């Protein structure tokens, strides 16, 4: 096993149960609050790395790259999320080199929500590469070549090559799961080394998925999206593909007193992590701005 390129990789290699969290850059230049919150609540030994989303849900905002750099400056290890929706292979490879130059080592490849889902529906959707192609691009760069060819038809050589921990995503609770598993196989074949999942609220469904995917030998971090209200849960059930919030959880949230929603939300997230801990190698907590709850979730999940 080669030397780990990041703390996240070292933790995964050590076989510990790994926790990652996530922040989203702002729509505007006022990024300090997000970074400050991350420093206050997510900079701790129990969290291996923090993802920074890339123009999440196709809503225009500051870049993942700049968010990652600011986290690094505060001593927090970032995971650079990269979607293939907005940039072609020239820009993606260039950003990968830039990220490495800045000290970013963990990269998560995603396709990205379609532009029509966001706030610039008139934008041109790029999708030059798919998420598998982006992982292929990373693997190439690591070998010291890019995706282009020189005059003789050989791959262009790089002056200095990066080394990443390459991540990918999967949707375990999709209504038709085999195509998701095949896609995951391809991502791993292309070079993916770990996987963070879409939100899971149904441990039984997740267990079934993990059994079907047990031949895929990469660590899986189960996705935990912190539920902020029963309304949000209902919205996700109706509108977010591959996310199913069971009725019991919906009821728990709906029955919670107004000033007790956050407490309930912590209990639900922590309970899910406790239930699914034996099935996977880690949890990826997506607090959607409720960063202050993450330490409590970790504590309640008995991960300290």
């Amino acid at each position, binding site marked *: 096993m080669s030397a780990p390129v990041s703390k996240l990789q070292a933790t995964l290699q050590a076989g510990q149960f790994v926790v990652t969290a996530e922040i989203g850059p702002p729509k505007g230049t006022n990024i300090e609050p997000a970074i400050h919150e991350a420093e206050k609540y997510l900079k701790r030994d129990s969290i291996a790395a923090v993802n920074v989303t890339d123009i999440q849900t196709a809503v225009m905002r500051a870049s993942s790259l700049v968010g990652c750099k600011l986290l690094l400056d505060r001593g927090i290890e970032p995971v650079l999320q990269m979607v293939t929706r907005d940039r072609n*292979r020239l820009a993606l490879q260039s950003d990968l080199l830039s990220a490495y130059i800045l000290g970013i080592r963990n990269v998560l490849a995603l396709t990205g929500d379609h532009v029509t889902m966001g706030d610039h529906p008139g934008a041109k959707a790029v999708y030059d590469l798919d998420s598998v*192609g982006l992982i*292929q691009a990373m693997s190439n760069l690591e070998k010291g070549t890019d995706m282009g060819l020189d005059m003789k038809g050989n791959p262009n050589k790089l002056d200095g090559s990066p080394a990443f921990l390459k991540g990918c995503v999967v949707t375990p609770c999709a209504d038709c799961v*085999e*195509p998701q598993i095949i896609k995951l196989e391809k991502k791993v074949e292309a070079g993916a080394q770990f996987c963070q999942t879409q939100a899971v609220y149904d441990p039984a469904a997740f267990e079934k998925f993990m059994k079907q995917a047990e031949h895929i030998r990469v660590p899986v971090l189960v996705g935990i999206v912190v539920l902020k209200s029963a309304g949000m849960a209902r919205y996700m059930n109706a509108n977010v593909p591959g996310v199913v919030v069971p009725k019991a959880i919906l009821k728990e949230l709906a029955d919670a007193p107004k000033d007790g929603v956050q407490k309930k939300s912590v209990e639900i997230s922590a309970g899910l992590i406790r239930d699914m801990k034996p099935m996977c190698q880690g949890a990826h907590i997506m607090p959607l701005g409720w960063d202050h709850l993450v330490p409590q979730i970790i504590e309640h999940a008995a991960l300290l």
Partner: protein
Amino acid sequence: MIVAERKPLEEILGTVTPYGKVLVLGCGSCVTVCLSGGEKQAEELAVILNLAARQKGLKLQAEFDCIMRQCDKEFVANLKKDPKQYDAVLSIACGVGVGFMSEQFPDVPFLPGLNTTFHGAGSAPGLWKEYCHGCGDCLLAWTGGICPIARCAKSLINGTCGGTKEGKCEVSKDIDCAWYLIYKRLEQLGRLDQYRKLRPPVHWGKDRSAGPRRLTHKELAEIQEVTKQ
């Protein structure tokens, strides 16, 4: 076939208003089949334009004609009306027809009456769907005859994204998830191995990325040269 739909009348009126005598020119091929730009639609549009002109007090006078194909020199001779006798031609062919005909009549303004939308086929009565994107490098051999470039909103080549739900695309419940269709078809054909195969990135140079494309049949060009001599 090429599928097209008529532009909104207000937009058409906006482009023809500066002209007096206008020929509405239909095309007898694809756009006749998709009920947008055939002879019948040319006649109807001429009537509508004349009515609108009367109501709005415009000098516009529309007549109509139609040829079998506006994208083929052979059929230009079949025009019953001479475009040069008009101030403008409102072509209700696809964009190919408008462009090609304006090349044949460089002194006459050719205006588009349709928006050319996609390469498709009628998949149910009154419904045309996109089947091909014209990417220049056909992938249908390994996708069960279902094109992921044209029919997946993200043109993905290695399988479904996370936005698929009950066989539909995240973009709209009216759009089938192409990769769900491909999965089902390959499963039916016993060829899921083709779904599993890792595909390299698409060479978009064969698409529009390397500029306008052309097709040359050298032998045909040579025969024409000899015939001329």
